């Protein structure tokens, strides 16, 4: 295979630059007009304090954001798959429970769920703030993931089930060897959006005092009053992380497509 240039990147680069420049100018102009004095020079020290030789609060917060994301992703995938399968087991108690779970999670604000997880569930099971945060985010995203997986499974044709049945494959084997491998590549784009949502939604756990990126920025603002600089900085950090996730997703999609493995299902 010859290397292929991705035309998207070539055209997107000037567009990105122009958009960011415009945004920067708007913020700058607005700040100047309202008499805001910029102190960008203090920002790098919040990432790495060269004088003390230690990591700054934003880096530590980012680390915690990554940890929350990592654990939440793991739990979200396990739980999401389980709920999807439970929902598909039509007419059973399990599928009814899964349905109720789904409705509760999707029809209440994540913020409220986080607070309930921390002050009610966390209290009962003596969860730390960190794990309360991870569980709240996981339960929330798993509800959405289960619907993504379920629709992916349903999109695999009836004939595949019938063929597997007639060959004598067990239900677990049918899922593992026949259905899920076809569902996987189909799910890549929505999964990518889900990971991005998860990273962004993790900012909400700052309400229960978990020192992730957003909370770290808020505390710094309370101390230093560098509100615009800090908000803009963490916005850019989130943006960069999620652009990286998108790129990774697009890369995987190309890889799966190129290998021919279920390529036509993408």
């Amino acid at each position, binding site marked *: 295979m010859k290397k292929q240039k991705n035309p998207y990147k070539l055209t997107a680069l000037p567009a990105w630059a122009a958009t960011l420049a415009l945004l920067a100018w708007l913020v700058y102009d607005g700040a100047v007009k309202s008499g805001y004095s910029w102190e960008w020079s203090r920002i790098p020290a919040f990432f790495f304090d060269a004088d003390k030789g230690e990591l700054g609060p934003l880096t530590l917060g980012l680390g915690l954001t990554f940890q929350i994301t990592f654990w939440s992703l793991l739990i979200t995938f396990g739980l999401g798959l389980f709920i999807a399968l439970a929902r598909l087991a039509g007419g059973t108690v399990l599928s009814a429970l899964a349905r109720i779970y789904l409705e509760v999670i999707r029809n209440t604000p994540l913020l409220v769920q986080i607070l309930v997880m921390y002050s009610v569930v966390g209290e009962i099971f003596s969860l730390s703030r960190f794990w309360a945060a991870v569980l709240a985010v996981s339960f929330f995203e798993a509800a959405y993931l289960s619907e993504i997986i379920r629709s992916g499974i349903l999109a695999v*044709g009836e004939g*595949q089930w*019938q063929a597997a*049945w*007639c060959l*004598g*494959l067990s239900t677990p084997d049918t899922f593992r060897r026949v259905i899920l491998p*076809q569902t996987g590549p189909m799910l890549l784009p929505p999964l990518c959006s889900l990971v991005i949502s998860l990273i962004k939604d993790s900012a909400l756990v700052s309400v229960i005092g978990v020192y992730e990126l957003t909370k770290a920025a808020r505390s710094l603002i309370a101390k230093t009053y560098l509100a615009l600089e800090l908000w803009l900085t963490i916005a850019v950090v989130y943006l960069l992380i999620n652009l990286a996730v998108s790129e990774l997703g697009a890369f995987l999609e190309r890889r799966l497509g190129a290998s021919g493995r279920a390529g036509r*299902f993408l």
Partner: protein
Amino acid sequence: MTGGDFISVERIYKTYDSGLAALKGVSLTVRRGETLVIVGPSGSGKSTLLRCLCGLEEIDAGAVVIDGQVVSGDARLRDKMRPELGLVFQSFNLFPHLTVMENITLAPVRVRRVKAAEAEKAAGRLLEKVGLADKAGARPAQLSGGQQQRVAIARALAMNPRVMLFDEVTSALDPEMIGEVLAVMKDLAAEGLTMVVVTHEMGFAREVGEAVVFMDGGEVVERAAPAARFFDQPATDRARQFLEKIF
């Protein structure tokens, strides 16, 4: 002579959730080593019958007896019997994410617990038999319809089923590919495999069918053996009308 029956269907009824009665008291038998052809107009319940045989559909009443055991209504026995009936579909239903070789070896390895190397050897022989020895590494999407259907036959054969069920396996094929698939089926019939063949290929039915069952409106209207007798002298008016429309 019932000792010779491998499959015996006894007055089975099947009504779909939609309220449509697809099978209305169908009875028939398939003898060991026999090639039974089922013909009948569209919607007469032929596919439904095959699906009831291999347990893809639950029947409402009656009994499906396979090898002397009543499998209908007995989930465990039916599961045990599932690999013994190989069904080939009109729409192939190959696994698109697997290679031809993987399609064929998946079930023997997972269900029959055959060692991978052995399964591949056996699959190689089957591919040779259906004339596709050079396609082991291909994916279904890279094959023509006729080739895909021959892989599907090989995949079903790999389980060493005791009976093969064919549901209009040439109906979705371009005319020039029908022959290659029918040739494979003729070979199997000649080897003495027990086969139930639903088909619209009347020439094939006449030549290969040791017995013919004519279905209409969810019922068996007529059974004849050998097949040629049905085509030359149908015993019922409904069969005569059906044959007149076709020829």
